[in-house]
């Protein structure tokens, strides 16, 4: 395994281990997601067919808000005891540090999203599992986009006092293309439509978004970390 991936894996394992022990971000994010799903179920008639048509939008609004709680902690976790200084002064490249943190955030976010789907199914009476493999692919691709931009902005805002506010303000406008694609694709898949035609175009947009922002973030993160 190359040095880059070995260092990224080390950072990812460290972040996941810390988070699973403290459960700070997991508990906050998961309980927030479930409460929002519950509250939306009071606002809409769960028995109506229309719920399938807006299922993608509803789910991704929940995932985006709950995700910000995980992403906010990503670099903020390093502030205690000045751990970020030790990481930045070690021979780990900024790109490897960023990639490892992004992978850890991806695992946490996808885990929370996977727990939200059954809750969504119960509250709204939707059979969301009909195209499980395609749905999983869309969830991972869209979450990677959210994760990459969120981790980058987490690094950028880590020293700000109002970082909890700044991260969503920077993150959501940037995420609009990926969120639109994720909403369209999720709605289509839950409604039983295949990934062809328009849906395929949205899928390509999502993949392109991920590639562009991953490359940009890997190239720019060193500048963000060392000022």
């Amino acid at each position: 395994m190359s040095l880059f991936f070995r260092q990224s894996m080390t950072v990812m394992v460290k972040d996941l281990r810390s988070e699973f022990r403290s459960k700070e971000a997991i508990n906050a994010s998961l309980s927030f997601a479930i409460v929002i799903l519950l509250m939306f179920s009071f606002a809409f008639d769960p028995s109506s067919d229309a719920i399938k048509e807006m299922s993608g939008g509803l789910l991704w609004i929940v995932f985006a808000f709950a995700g910000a709680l995980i992403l906010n902690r990503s670099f903020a976790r390093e502030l205690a005891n000045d751990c970020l200084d030790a990481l930045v002064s070690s021979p780990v490249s900024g790109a490897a540090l960023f990639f490892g943190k992004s992978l850890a955030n991806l695992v946490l976010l996808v885990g929370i999203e996977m727990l939200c789907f059954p809750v969504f199914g119960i509250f709204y009476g939707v059979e969301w599992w009909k195209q499980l493999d395609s749905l999983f692919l869309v969830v991972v691709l869209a979450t990677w986009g959210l994760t990459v931009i969120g981790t980058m902005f987490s690094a950028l805002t880590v020293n700000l006092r109002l970082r909890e506010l700044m991260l969503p303000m920077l993150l959501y406008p940037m995420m609009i293309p990926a969120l639109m694609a994720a909403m369209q694709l999720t709605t289509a898949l839950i409604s039983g439509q295949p990934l062809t035609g328009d849906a395929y175009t949205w899928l390509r947009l999502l993949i392109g978004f991920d590639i562009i922002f991953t490359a940009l973030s890997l190239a720019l993160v060193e500048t963000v970390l060392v000022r």
Partner: protein
Amino acid sequence: MPSSAALHVDQVYKFFGDYPALRDVSYSLEPGACLALLGRNGAGKTTLLRILSGLSKPSKGQVLVFGHDSREQATRAKIGVLGHGIAIYDELSAVENLKLFANLYGLSNPQQQAMKWLERTGLERVADSLVREFSRGMRQRLAVARAFIHEPSLLLLDEPFTALDDRAIAVLQSLLADAKKDGRTIVMSTHQLREALELATDVALINKGKLAFKGERTQEMVDDPAYIYRSYGDL
């Protein structure tokens, strides 16, 4: 530029907005030297150490560590940093913390290295305990182990004796004496003049961001640690 220098600082400036934290700092340090970096609070010692360790970029000027830019990965592997924060993770155990840094520094057999440094700092019995359960002194000793684990050629220590308990001071003094004996280069900012001057081969005084004095440590300085401030600082 002296190619043999462990550290070469050439006309370094650092501005925070319009405020000049460092002004025209130039210095060279030979391998194996131990520099006591002195100065009042806010003089620019920490800013200089952050630039030397690659945590911050100079606004102007150049810093070379063993002839290379301090942000190069290979150069960073030769530097050990002990800053104001202990830089260890509360949610990990002592051995997990040291293994993490051993892995990041690419050491072979991280477990063995971690246990070796836990023994050297007297923490082997609590190797598997979470750091959040440690006393302040134990955390400080673990921080020292973290900074030394990759046996760096250049040690950058920012007020290393501040807030340490007696045992941590003893551990650090012993490790620094060993490091000096092994020919490692040490740069240490401190307000504990007596401890620093006993160890130092060179002394530099920063005053309001400028290098007010640089030179070899003399017996006069050891006998009267305030001498250097009286002669070159604002007393």
